[in-house]
């Protein structure tokens, strides 16, 4: 398949293969998880579908490769997957030493804590002496120790590899608190029979920009991925939705005209068809729709992922 020398050509390789290979989580509620029929669903999965639509005009031309925390980077490095949409935190060392690029942050997250309401804890600072459930092998573990050290808090860790077991350990009361990205906390909380029994503490102890990943040195493909994300954002910003994207031919706003490729030009610059954006939004919806479809039901608020003009961090550069 592709070597890093040919990495510059992921785009062509994908086109000639007729299929996008997308690395996803082995199972994370709301983000990526097969349903009862074995069909992959979730927020990250929609990004795979969006990129596939951008390239092929067909959201189903995707092959999903479930990746674990340990093998996700090698999967990308070795060309086993083309793009990674798998809640991966963008950090300096990963960006530089692992041979990866992070074209776009599709979800801004931060690490937080969840406790049971019955515990009566209102702030993470009160967690002195607590037992805390944490997943190993990710940034979470280090964030936790960093935070504990800076706040002079002593805690007992319970380190379990698989998320399901970790959550069930927390639910069963093995730990007083459970720490992971706030989105994950919210997802866990909403999955509980009585969400009100659990409280997500206000402290966010780290910045976790969850980014899409591609191989380093493949600017063209990175552009496609990056602008697919921006397309979803811009579509939301300009009110382009799955329902109305077909009927916008006469929309007066020039930016909208450029996005839907009325006058041509932008798509081909990316190596895509003129109507790529229409197809993507038609198939997937805009950022807000994707968010509402997958993350809202499990209790995640927009928060930092709101549009820039709504007080959030999601900001799309202009389509021009």
């Amino acid at each position, binding site marked *: *398949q*592709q*070597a*890093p*020398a*040919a990495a510059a050509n992921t785009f062509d390789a994908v086109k000639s293969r007729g299929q996008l290979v997308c690395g996803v989580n*082995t*199972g*994370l*509620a*709301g983000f990526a*998880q*097969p*349903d*009862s*029929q*074995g*069909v*992959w669903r979730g927020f990250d999965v929609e990004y795979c579908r969006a990129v596939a639509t951008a390239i092929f005009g067909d959201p189903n031309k995707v*092959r*999903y*490769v*479930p*990746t*674990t925390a*340990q*093998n996700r980077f*090698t999967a990308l*490095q*070795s*060309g*086993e997957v083309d793009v990674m949409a798998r809640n991966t935190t963008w950090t300096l060392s990963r960006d530089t030493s692992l041979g990866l690029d992070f074209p776009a942050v599709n979800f801004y997250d931060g690490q937080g804590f969840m406790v049971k309401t019955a515990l009566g804890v209102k702030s993470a600072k009160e967690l002195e002496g607590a037992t805390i459930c944490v997943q190993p092998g990710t940034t979470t573990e280090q964030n936790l120790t960093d935070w504990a050290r800076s706040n002079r808090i002593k805690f007992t860790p319970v380190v379990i590899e*698989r*998320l*399901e077991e970790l*959550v*069930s350990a927390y*639910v069963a009361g093995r730990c007083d608190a459970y720490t992971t990205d706030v989105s994950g906390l919210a*997802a866990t909380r*909403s*999955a*509980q*029979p009585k969400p009100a029994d659990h409280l997500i503490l206000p402290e966010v102890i780290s910045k976790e920009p969850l980014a899409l990943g591609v191989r380093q040195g493949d600017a063209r493909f990175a552009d496609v991925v990056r602008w697919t994300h921006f397309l979803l954002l811009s579509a939301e910003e300009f009110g382009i939705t799955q329902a109305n994207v077909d009927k916008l031919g006469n929309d007066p706003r020039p930016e909208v005209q450029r996005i839907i490729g009325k006058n041509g030009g932008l798509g081909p610059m990316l190596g895509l068809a003129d109507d790529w954006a229409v197809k993507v939004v038609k198939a997937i919806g805009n950022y807000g729709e994707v968010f509402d479809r997958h993350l809202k039901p*499990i209790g995640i608020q927009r928060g930092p992922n709101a549009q820039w003009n709504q007080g959030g961090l999601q900001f799309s550069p202009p389509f021009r």
Partner: protein
Amino acid sequence: MSDVTLETAAAKVPEAAPRSPPASQIGLLAWLRTNLFSSWLNSAVTLLIAYLVVRWTIGFVEWGIVNAVWSVPDNQTQACRDLKGIGACWAVITEKHRFILFGTYPYEEHWRPALCVLLFVGLYTVSAMRRFWRKELALVWVATLTAIGVLMWGGILGLPYVPQERWGGLVITLILATFGLALAFPLAVLVALGRRSRLPAIKALCVLYVELIRGVPLISLLFMASVMFPLFLPEGMNIDKLLRAQIAIILFAGAYLAEVVRGGLQALPKGQYEAAEALGLSYWQKTGFIILPQALRLVIPPLVNTFIGFFKDTSLVLIIGIFDLLTAGKTAIIEPAWQGFGVEVYLTVGAIYFVFCFAMSKYSQSLEAELNRHRNR
């Protein structure tokens, strides 16, 4: 001849009527007395165990059948949650059983892996019957495995193509176990022969292989196959993830089986080697016709034991993100609606493993008995 005279003569001798033993000697009562209540300690143990068994059985029946919820309308698991653990929520199996069995294989195409499972079972059954132990069996294997490959991949005969990443569940377990053992076995035979070779370098290589591989846990090998293998290959070259796991399992099983086979080789009397040599058979003729057929027969029980072990060990591929039966079961309960019903899923998955392993273990026992009967006349 002398037997005949004895028989006829003895028949003439009037036989004293045998008395039946006193009542305490036969019947249910006697059986109970000797087997369950032969001393006060025995009686106490019997009563205690009987009590526990009855209690647990009743508890399980109540939980698993009487109070159980068998299905719920589309993902509304409230009914299950209301049970608060006093009854099983089999609805999770009703809802997810196809995912557990077939993973992310395209839903409409599930008949294909289902057929494959049947083919596997059929293959095992045929191979288990001694009257089919002929050369043609190898052809049956090749044909069946090919058919399974065609069914799973598709792409021809009008079957839509299904990439390997979408395979999952029981089929993956069966594939990993069957291919793993089918390929590890010849490897093991070669290594076992090599370990008994007179050529020091070959012997050393085999010893090194066996000891190195046996000394480390399977998960570290799987891990290496998953994380590091891409680094071993030239840039751009890559091997499918399932195949890598498969290779790791083959290498691991090969080392274990090699030791079992070596045991058989060692148990064979030296005279058999010498007789074959004296007849002028070449090394490979000797090995193929004389040594292996006997050595392998000797080690069928430990061989089957090892098979059982590896059938179960395929569940370790979950470490590297392949959706085998167990991983599929675990993934099925990630969905928020179904979180918390792990026990039901684990019980089901465990039952499936149990059926296969138990069948193997019973089979090995009967086979052992049969072969032994054959040996002594």
